[in-house]
C-alpha cells in the first residue's frame, strides 16, 4: 500500500499526486516511470515520474483522466492509498551538455518533459521550453517550466493564451529565427511527437521522444510494449521509454495503442455508470 500525501488538480481532469514511496524516490532519475495498480482487480499502467523528494520519500505523478484507471485514480484524495507502485522503471534520460536544447511538452506530456528539462538545465544547457495545450485552462506546470528555462513559451491551439498555434509552429519559428538548436526533447500525444520529428528531420537536429505503449510488467518480461525503432523491435520498458524520434515508427505505435479501445470504452462506461449510481445513492435522504 502506498499512501497519497498530496493530491490536487492542476487543470481540468489533470491531477497531481505525491505518493509515499521512499525507495523509488531515492533511486529515480529523469525519464523513468512507475507502474501502478489501484486495487485487487486493477490493471497495471505506466506513469512517468514528474518529480521526487528523497528527503520526504515521495514521488510525484501527474495524471490525465482518460480511461477507467486514470479516472479512478483522479478520484483519489490525500490520505487514500494505491495498492501497488513499482519502479523506478525504464532507462533514465540521456543527459549531457548539448548546448541549446528545446524541451517540448504537449498536454500532460509537459509533466514528463519537466524533469528532463530540469536535468538538462543542471548540466549547463541553454534551455528553451515550449509548453503546449489545447487551451488556457489546460496549461500545466507553467511556473515550474519557466523556472528551469532560459526562454519559456506557452502555446495554445485556440490562442486563448500565449502563442496561438501548435508547438511545432513555435519550434519552426525558433529554427527560422536562426537559433542554433542542438537537441530537442518532445513529449506529448503521438501526432505531436511525430510532427516535431518531421520539423527537426530536415535540419538533422537530434530529437528524442518518450513513448507510451501499453505495458504489463514493465521489466521486459511480456514484450507487449515493443515499438519499432530503426526497423527493429525494442521494448519501451527496458530499452526506452526514450528513443530517437527520427527512427520511431509512429504509425505502428499509434495502431498498437488502439488495440484495446473497445475494451477501454466498455470499462469506462461501466465505471462511470457505477460512479453515477453511487452519487445518486449518496444523495438519497
Amino acid at each position, binding site marked *: 500500500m502506498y499512501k497519497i500525501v498530496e493530491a490536487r488538480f492542476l487543470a481540468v481532469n489533470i491531477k497531481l499526486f505525491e505518493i509515499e514511496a521512499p*525507495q*523509488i524516490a531515492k*533511486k529515480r532519475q529523469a525519464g523513468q516511470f512507475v507502474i501502478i*495498480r489501484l486495487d485487487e*482487480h*486493477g*490493471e*497495471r499502467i505506466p506513469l512517468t515520474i514528474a518529480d521526487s523528494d528523497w528527503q520526504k520519500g515521495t514521488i510525484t505523478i501527474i495524471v490525465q483522466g482518460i480511461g*477507467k*484507471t486514470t479516472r479512478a485514480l483522479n478520484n483519489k484524495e490525500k490520505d487514500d492509498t494505491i*495498492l*501497488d*507502485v*513499482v*519502479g*523506478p*522503471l525504464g532507462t533514465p534520460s540521456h543527459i549531457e551538455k548539448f548546448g541549446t536544447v528545446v524541451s517540448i511538452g504537449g498536454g500532460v506530456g509537459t509533466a514528463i518533459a519537466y524533469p528532463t528539462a530540469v536535468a538538462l538545465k543542471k548540466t549547463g544547457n541553454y534551455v528553451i521550453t515550449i509548453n503546449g495545450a489545447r487551451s488556457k485552462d489546460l496549461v500545466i506546470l507553467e511556473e515550474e517550466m519557466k523556472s528551469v528555462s532560459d526562454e519559456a513559451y506557452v502555446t495554445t491551439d485556440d490562442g486563448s493564451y500565449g502563442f496561438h498555434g501548435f508547438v511545432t509552429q513555435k519550434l519552426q519559428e525558433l529554427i527560422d529565427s536562426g537559433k542554433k538548436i542542438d537537441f530537442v526533447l518532445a513529449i506529448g500525444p503521438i501526432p505531436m511527437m511525430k510532427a516535431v520529428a518531421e520539423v527537426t528531420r530536415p535540419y538533422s537536429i537530434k530529437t528524442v521522444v518518450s513513448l507510451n505503449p501499453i505495458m*504489463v*510488467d514493465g*521489466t*521486459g*518480461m*511480456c*514484450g*507487449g510494449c*515493443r*515499438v*519499432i525503432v530503426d526497423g527493429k*523491435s525494442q*521494448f519501451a520498458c*527496458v530499452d526506452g521509454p526514450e528513443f530517437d524520434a527520427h527512427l520511431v515508427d509512429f*504509425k*505502428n505505435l499509434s*495502431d*498498437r495503442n*488502439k*488495440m*484495446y479501445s473497445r*475494451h*477501454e470504452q*466498455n*470499462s469506462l462506461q*461501466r465505471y462511470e455508470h457505477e460512479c453515477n449510481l453511487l452519487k445518486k445513492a449518496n444523495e438519497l435522504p
Partner: protein
Amino acid sequence: MTENAKPKLTAKERMQIQRHHMIEQDPDVRNKNFTEVNLGYTAEMAKQEALRCIQCPKPTCIQGCPVNIDIKGFITQVAEGDFLGAVKTIKQDNALPAICGRVCPQEEQCEAACVVGKKNDPVAIGNLERFVADYERETGKVELPQVAASTGKKIAVVGSGPAGLSCAKDLIQLGHQVTVFEALHELGGVLIYGIPEFRLPKTIVKQEIDGLKKMGVVFKTDAVVGRTITVDELLNEEGFNAVFIGVGAGLPWFLNIPGENLIGVYSANEFLTRVNLMKAYNFPDYDSPILDCKGKNVAVFGGGNTAMDSVRTALRLGAKNAYIVYRRSDKEMPARVEEVKHAREEGVQFMMLTNPVKFEGDENGWLQSMTCLKMELGAPDDSGRRRPVPVEGSDFKVDLDIAVVAIGNGSNPLINQTTPEIEVNKWGNIIADNETMATSKKGVFAGGDIVTGGATVILAMGAGRVAAKSIHEYVMNNAQ
C-alpha cells in the same frame, strides 16, 4: 506395516497390475473452463498403483530424479497406506511436491528410469507424488518443518519463482533471516503468471507460500532488483550477508519475421500473464483486457509446455481454431507428453513441420493471416535434434486473428546492467559454479532459468536447494 497393508506380492504379480490413470475432466467440458484438468487418484488407486513398484534393490528412478527423492521409500509408504509418512519422505528432498507432481516431465526423469517401464508402463511416480501432497494439504495435516535456532545471518533471495522459493525454504530452516524480493505484485513467479490454473491451481502455490511465511520468510512485492534496489545495495547498505538470484529467464524471444508487431501478435509471456496474473478472462470485472478469442483463429508457435499452456488457454477463451505451429515433428516437441495428449483431446490442431515466414495485416495494423512454409527434417543440429529445412514452393496462407509466440526466453538484463561484476555468458545467462551456484561476485549465488536458460520447475528448485546449501556454508564461514 499397518493392518490393512497388502500381503507381499511377487515381482511378477506386481508387473501384472496395469498403470492407473488419474481421473480427468472430460475433454469437451474442460476445454471450456479453467479448473484443473486432472482430478487425481483416490486413496485406493494410489495404493494399487504403489503396488506396481517392484522394489528394485538399486532403484534407478532415484537417479532419474533431478533432486534424488527417495522414490522407492515413499512408494513403499503409499502401498502401506502411510500417506503422510510418504509426503514427509518426499519433502526431505523436494520442498514443493504438490507442484512438482503436476509439472515435472516425469516421463523424461524418474519414470524414464523406472525398471517396470522397460516391459510395461512405468510406475506413475508423478501421480503418486501429487496424490500424497494433496492428501496432506486436503486433510489439513501439513506439518511445517522445524526451524533451527537463529544464526543472525541475513540472506536476500531475488525472485519468488521455483528457484527462489526452494532456496528460501532451506535457508529459513537453517536458521537464517530470509527476505524474498519479487518484481510483480504477486508471489510465485512463473507458477503464478505462467502456468495456467487448469494445470496448477493457484491455491496450491499460495498455500506453499503461506507455509514459508509462517516459517518466518519475509516477502517484498513490487521490488525490482536492478531498479528499485541493486544487488550491491542489498549487500552493502541493507546488511544482507549473501544474495541468491533466481529471477528466471524473462525476456521473450520473437520470431523475427515481418508483421510481428501487428495487433494480435503476443508473446506467450504476455498472453499468459494477462490471463493468469491479471485475470483478463474476467474482464471487465478485472480491468486488464485481452483480445477476444471467441470464434477466432489462434495460432501458437512453439512445441514446449508454454506453447501447450497458451494454446489450451486460447481454447478456453473460446477460440474456433486453436493451432500449434511447430517447425519440427512430434518427436522433437519438448512439452510434457501429458500436455500434448491433453491438448489433442481438447481439440487443438497441430500444424507440424511448419514454419511461419510472415504475418499479414489490414491498414489499421490488425493481424489477418500468416504465411507458412512446410519443413522436412535434415541432419541433426547442435541440439541433437534433426534440423528442419524448408520445402521449396510449399508456402501457404492461414487466416489468423491472434498469434502467440512461445519459442522461449532470453535472459533479463536488469541485474547485470546494474551489477556488471556478475559475469554472464554470451546469451546473458549468469555464470554460476555447477557445484556451489556461486557467481563471479563474492556473496552472490544464482540458480534456475537465469543460469540455465529456459528449463523446468524441478531443475530450478534443485538449483535453489544446492545454492541454499552453499550459501549456508558461505555465511557461516566467511561473511562478517
